C-alpha cells in the first residue's frame, strides 16, 4: 500500500485541481516550485483557465501512466492519444501553447509546435493568393459577359 503525495493546483477561475505528485512534476515549472518549497498549500496558476488546465493534466496523466517500455502497443496507443489530443480548434491550441510554455512541459510543447508547423506548411501564401485570383477571374468574367450583352442590346 503506497501513499502517493498529492498536490493542489489553483487556477485563474479559482478552481482547485488535486493531482498526484508524479503527475504534477511533469511540468518543470511546478517541479521547481515544489523543490523550492513553494507548494505547501496550493500552487497558483493565475493565467490558465480550467478547460486548458484539465487538458494539460489529462496529457500528463496519460504519459505518466503509460509504462516507458519499447512495447509497440503502448507506443502506438500513446501516439494515437497525442494525435487526438491536438485535434482541437485553433483558439484552444494557442491557449494550450501559452499554458504549456509557462508550465514548461517539453514533450507536450514539442507536440503542439510540430502540429502548428504542419498546419502552416499546408497553407503557403501562394496557394491562398491562387484561390483569391481564381475567384476574382470568375467574377470579372460574368461582369464582362453581362456588359457585352447589354451593349449589344443597346440598353
Amino acid at each position, binding site marked *: 500500500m503506497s501513499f502517493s503525495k498529492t498536490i493542489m493546483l489553483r487556477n485563474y477561475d479559482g478552481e482547485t485541481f488535486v493531482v498526484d505528485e508524479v503527475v504534477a512534476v511533469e511540468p518543470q515549472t511546478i517541479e521547481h516550485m515544489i523543490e523550492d518549497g513553494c507548494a505547501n498549500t496550493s500552487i497558483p496558476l493565475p493565467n490558465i483557465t480550467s478547460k486548458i488546465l484539465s487538458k494539460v493534466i489529462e496529457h500528463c496523466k496519460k504519459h505518466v501512466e503509460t509504462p516507458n517500455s519499447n512495447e509497440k502497443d503502448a507506443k502506438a496507443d500513446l501516439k494515437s492519444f497525442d494525435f487526438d489530443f491536438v485535434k482541437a480548434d*485553433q*483558439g484552444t491550441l*494557442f491557449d494550450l*501553447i*501559452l499554458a504549456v*510554455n509557462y508550465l514548461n512541459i517539453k514533450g507536450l*510543447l514539442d507536440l503542439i*509546435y*510540430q502540429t*502548428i*508547423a504542419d*498546419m*502552416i*506548411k499546408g497553407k*503557403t*501564401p501562394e496557394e491562398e493568393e491562387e484561390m483569391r485570383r481564381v475567384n476574382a477571374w470568375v*467574377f470579372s468574367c*460574368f*461582369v464582362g*459577359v*453581362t456588359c457585352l*450583352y447589354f451593349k449589344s*442590346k443597346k440598353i
Partner: protein
Amino acid sequence: MILFRQFMFKINIGLLVRIMKLTHRTRTRTRTRTRKASKFAPQDFISSMPDNVVTNILDRLPVRHAVRTSILSRSWRFKWTMLSQLEFDRVFFGCLMQHKGENDCGGVISRLLLHIEGVIEKFVLSMFDVKHINYRYENINHWILFLSTKSIKDLTLDIGNWTPVKMPTHLFSCVELKHLKLRNCCFNPPPTFHGFPNLLSLELYMVRFKSGELGEILTRCPLLETLDLGSLFSTRSVKLVEIVKSENLKKLSLRLCDLDTETIISSSTIFELVGFLPKLEELSLDFAKCQLTEGGAKKKFPTASLKTLTLSRIDLSNVHMRSCVFEVIRNFPNLQTLIISSIHRKTDSVPILPEEYNTTGLRRVVFECLEGSENEVYLIKYLLVCSPFLEKVVIRGGEWFMSRKRLKFARKVLKLHRASTVAEIDFK
C-alpha cells in the same frame, strides 16, 4: 428565339443583382476587418504569441518557408531572424535553382546567416546528390567561423561527392558541440585542440585522418556515447586500442575492414572490442571486404550490456562468417535484438548446424536481403530452437528472391519448430 433572348436577359439581371449584393457584403466586411481582428485569421493568433513560441514554430518549418514569413506584415519582417535551426539540403538547393535560377547558392546562405541574431543550435549542410551549383569551398570555412561564435550544438556537414574539404581550425573551437556528423572531409585537429567536452555523438563517413589521430580525439571527448565510423576513407586506418578509449560508448558502428589489427580478424576481435566497452548497448558491424579467419584464443569477456547487434553484408555461405554468427549468438546472453543483412557469393558449402544449442534471450530477429539458401534456413532453425522468449522474426528477401522460390522458402521456415509459443514470423 425571342423568348430565349428574354430568358437570358432575365438570368443575367438576376446574376448581376447577386454579384452586386456579394461585393456590397465583401466591401462592408473589408471595412469591419480593418477595425477588429477576424477570429478566422490564424496569423492573428500566432502574431500575439511570445517570441520564443514563434521561434520554436519557425524552427520546425523548412528554412525557405520560415524566411518567407517576413513578407506577411511589418511585425513579421524580422521574426525569422531568431531561427536557431537551419537546414540546407537538396530540396533547398533545388528550389533555389528552380525558382530563382540562382547560381550562387553560397552567397544566398552567407547573406541569410548574416541576418541571424540569436544562437544557432543546429546547422545542417547536405550537398549529397546536389548537382550543378556554383560551389566554393571557402564559403564553408566562413560559415564554420560564423557558427563557432554562435554556440553551435549540432553540426552536420555532408560534402556529398564533391572534392573533400579540409575542416578549418575554427571547427575545433566549437566547444559546445554535442552532435557532429561529417562526410567526405579531412579531419585534422590542430595541436592546441583540447577536445569537445560535451560531445555525445560523432559520425564520420569517408573521412580522412592521420594515423593515431582518432584515438587522440576520442580521449578528449569523455562524454561520447555514439560513435559511427560508417565507412572511412581507407581501410585499416583505425586501431582497436583507439576505439576503446571511449569508455562511455553506448552505440558503436564500424566496418571490420577499417580495423588495423596485427592478425587477421576473427570472432575473438569482436569479443575483445565489446569486452573493452562495458557500457556498450548497440553494436553494428559491417563485414564488407573483410577476410575472416577461425576464432583465435577464446577469452571470455563480460558482455552483459549488449542488447542490439547488427551484422551487415555478411556472407552466410562462408564457413568462417557463419561460425562467427553462431559464436556471437552464443556468447552475448543478454542480446535482445539481432539484425542480419546478408550478401551472396557463389560458394558451395555444406550447411552444418552447430552441435551445442544454448538458450538465448533474443526477442526480435530481422533478416534482410535473404536469398533462400539452405544456410539461411539452418540459421533460422537454430534461432527458433534456442530462443524461448522470441516475439518476432521479420524476413525480407533480396531483389533476386523470386516469388516461387520465396514461397518454397516460406513453407520450409514456417514448418520449423519454435521454442517460443508467441513467436511471429513476418515475410515482407
